[in-house]
């Protein structure tokens, strides 16, 4: 099975046109001594057999585990129309829209995506997507270093540990100083952040809500950063922006996040998309593809890839980033999701998440010796303090088909008894009550 269409006769005729006797002749430029020493692969199979094998493989994952986990990926509802529309072959079998006249579908959709991201974050310019939340945060940091010409970053420790690791991996070989603040009651560590700010700081990097779930108004941090000539970078959970004060309103300069929660399946961690938005004045420093509006020869409106001179295919080693392929199809799913939700729907969705989580807080917090970390308000995630190691609790509940949360001790010191619980709109009251019942039984029976 290789989807190669030529008949024997056609192949012969083509070889004749080329003027060689066999396919082997076409590989003559490759010296014999360079030929493959091995190519030990299984024999091919039909689509039917492949799907059987894949079905078996998927079946060897546990089915129906109830997820109260996040960690950057969230179990949200996805309207069927998202799959249907992003499954249009004209979208998913096209590539980067280099030729605008025959790619207006992708270009207009991505322009609409950029608009949606700007409106959601209250920023002025977005690119056409990055890979994921972690790499978007790293790109934002690199962008801030370029804009300010400085080399010191303040990174709040309550940001997603995976994102922080990605950021450090990206910057490992550059001369950049990263001041990492320890988390404070599950919220942004504002006192240490303000104390660390100086006029060599390129940016303050904050996640809001934090990995622990806490949400804060960062207006004061933005002001303090700006007073020192530094930028504020925030990484946000896009669904929360249906309800919560936007980063633009707080004065953020670069806003990033992971778009999985907007219409993309969990899919064991990808693909999702990273988004990045900024102020118009920093647009030339954005990494990756950007779509711009223009007109054709008859004055009709159309869309093109723009500001390409920033990018690797033109500027090579001086480009703003090495990114080429992005996550357009996942971004398109995000746009379709947001279009279906609409202005009211996203607000309702966010409120539903908030209410379910508040209910879960109340129910779980009423279990003996279980307390809810109350340093700041939360959206749909919160941290519990347990009378037992959280890893032990999680392992026991997982055996009962409930992913109860993310034990903080996996990522933080002295946090063994803390558990971050996520409650999306998909979790029913019944499931929340079940979690409470099973948690209580693990702790006390």
């Amino acid at each position, binding site marked *: 099975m290789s989807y*190669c269409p030529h008949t024997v006769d056609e192949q012969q005729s083509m*070889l004749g046109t080329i003027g060689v006797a066999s*396919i082997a002749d*076409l590989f003559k430029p490759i010296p014999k001594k*360079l030929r493959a*020493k*091995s*190519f030990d692969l299984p*024999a*091919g199979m039909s689509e039917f057999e*492949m799907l059987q094998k*894949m079905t078996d*493989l998927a*079946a060897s994952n546990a089915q129906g585990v109830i997820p109260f986990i996040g*960690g950057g*990926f969230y179990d949200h509802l996805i*309207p069927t129309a998202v799959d249907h529309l992003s499954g249009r072959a004209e979208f*998913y*079998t*096209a*590539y980067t829209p*280099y030729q605008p*006249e*025959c790619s*207006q*579908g992708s270009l207009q959709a991505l*322009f*609409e995506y*950029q608009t949606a991201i*700007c*409106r959601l974050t209250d920023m002025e*310019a*977005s690119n056409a997507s990055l*890979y994921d939340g972690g790499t978007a945060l790293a790109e934002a940091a690199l962008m801030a270093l370029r804009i300010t010409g400085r080399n010191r970053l303040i990174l709040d420790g309550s940001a997603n540990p995976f994102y922080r690791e990605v950021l450090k*991996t990206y910057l490992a070989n550059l001369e950049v100083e990263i001041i990492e603040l320890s988390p404070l009651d599950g919220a942004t560590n504002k006192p240490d952040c303000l104390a660390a700010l100086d006029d060599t700081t390129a940016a303050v990097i904050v996640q809001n809500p934090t990995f622990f779930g806490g949400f804060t108004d960062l207006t004061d941090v933005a002001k303090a950063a700006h007073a020192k000539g530094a930028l504020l970078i925030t990484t946000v959970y896009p669904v929360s*922006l*249906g309800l919560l004060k936007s980063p633009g309103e707080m004065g953020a300069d670069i806003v990033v996040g992971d778009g999985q929660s907007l219409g993309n399946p*969990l899919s*064991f*961690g*990808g693909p999702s998309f990273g988004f990045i938005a900024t102020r118009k004045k920093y647009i030339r420093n954005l990494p990756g593809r950007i779509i*711009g509006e223009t*007109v054709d020869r*008859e004055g009709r409106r159309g869309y093109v890839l723009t500001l390409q*001179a920033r990018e690797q295919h033109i500027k*090579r080693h001086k480009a703003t*980033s*090495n990114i080429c*392929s*992005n996550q*357009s*199809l996942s971004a*398109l799913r995000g746009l379709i999701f947001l*279009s279906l939700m*609409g202005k*009211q*729907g996203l607000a309702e969705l966010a409120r*539903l998440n908030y209410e*379910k989580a508040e209910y879960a807080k109340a129910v779980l917090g009423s279990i003996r010796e279980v307390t809810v970390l109350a340093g700041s308000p939360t959206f749909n995630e919160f941290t519990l303090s347990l009378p037992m190691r959280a890893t032990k609790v999680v*392992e026991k509940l997982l055996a009962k088909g409930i992913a109860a949360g993310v034990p903080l001790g996996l990522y933080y010191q002295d946090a063994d008894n803390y558990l971050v619980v996520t409650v999306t709109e998909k979790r029913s009251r019944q499931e929340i009550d079940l979690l409470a019942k099973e948690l209580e039984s693990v702790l006390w029976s």
Partner: protein
Amino acid sequence: MELIYEKSVAGRKGVRLPASDVPKAKALPKKLLRSEAAGLPELSELDVVRHFTNLSRLNYSVDTNFYPLGSCTMKYNAKGLEAAANLFAPFHPMTALLPGGEKLTQGSLGLLFELGSLLAEITGMDEVTTQPLAGAHGEMTGMLLIAAYHRAKGNRKKYVIVPDSSHGTNPASAAMVGYEIVTIPTAPYGDMDLDAFKAALNDEVAAVMMTCPNTLGLFNPHIKEICDLAHGVDALVYYDGANLNAIMGKVRPGDVGFDVVHVNLHKTFGTPHGAGGPGSGPVGVKKGLIPFLPIPRIVRKLTGAYTVEHENPEGIGRTANFFGNFGVMAKAYAYILMMGKEGLIQVSEQAVLNANYIMSRLKDLYEVPYDQTCMHECVLSASRQLAHDVHAIDIAKFLIDQGFHPPTVYFPLIVKEAIMIEPTETESKATMDAFIDAMREAAELTEKDPDILKRAPVTTPISRLDETKAAREQNVCCQ
């Protein structure tokens, strides 16, 4: 077409959410709420469906048009792959990272491990990480691995060598990791100038990045010598796998002497390009680099069970949120299962056959700057047409009117008026013949009636767009 925001009607709703089954909660303090709802469109489901369905119809795509975009391997994307990936849509990646979670995710972990093993065999490497999210991300991961290797050995290295025919991502990826770039010119025979390379090579060179076959579609017969020379100064050699579709089963980068390899699953392994992504760029390494691989790393235990290693003190750290673009990898795995050994060899043979067929039928009318047997793609030049003031871009636009997505134009940068054609193995002779006819017609019109080329395209909803206006005005979101 109107923007979706222009179709919005205040108060209209598209989706009904589940009713709340929990008591109303105390509202958050007002200062924490957004002052105004985000300006998303307000439409019915049908409005949204019609909008995006009609938008999709403005695209050329592999399923609707021949799409010989050089360097991008726009092969047919088998529909079974989508079905295979959808089987894994519900699984949360975090489950595998929880205590006791590995045994609940053996299917997903096994898929990643087995895909890595297959890719290691295909490329001749010792271990593969599936974490990188695209080709360029793989390159950067590779450069981070190389930097970690040199750091561990106490090597002082500053430079990365790239040929001038390389993809722009190569120098950009090396620069992101802090290296300075040394660019080597291309010799008249189409390969990197060996003498210039030798002159540039010294103890401070960390790596050499090679694409093989290169972006001219040519296989460099001196590639082993280049690897050996680089190793002589303890520089590592990076294989940009963008063109792997040409050589599967014929050459393995690992056998030749490459130390690090990335492969583009969305090119060689049949996963769709998604209007720009997602791709996936797994990276393979030789033994000496395994200690530096990113976390999380998936390992098979003696019992046959798959487990996740979360820590690696010597490693480069983490390059992506979780395990990479899993959905893309599920498709690539399904593709390799279907192709099998013989199928993958046939893929490369037919891809090379098709490219040479197109080249031999066009070289009387178009300049072939490096005229020799090509691999999976051929690079022509519109330099002869330039005498009539017809440029590669005019020919590209004419092809749109003939129903073909244009080849890559103006790349590689070292070829004037480049036209880079990669038909892939999945196209029929009839399709290629129709494309060849259109290219030949363009060459004839260049002399007879170049205005037709200059005006093209005329069959699309819009004509050529003013890119200067877009770049100057920077209108990147709807006000």
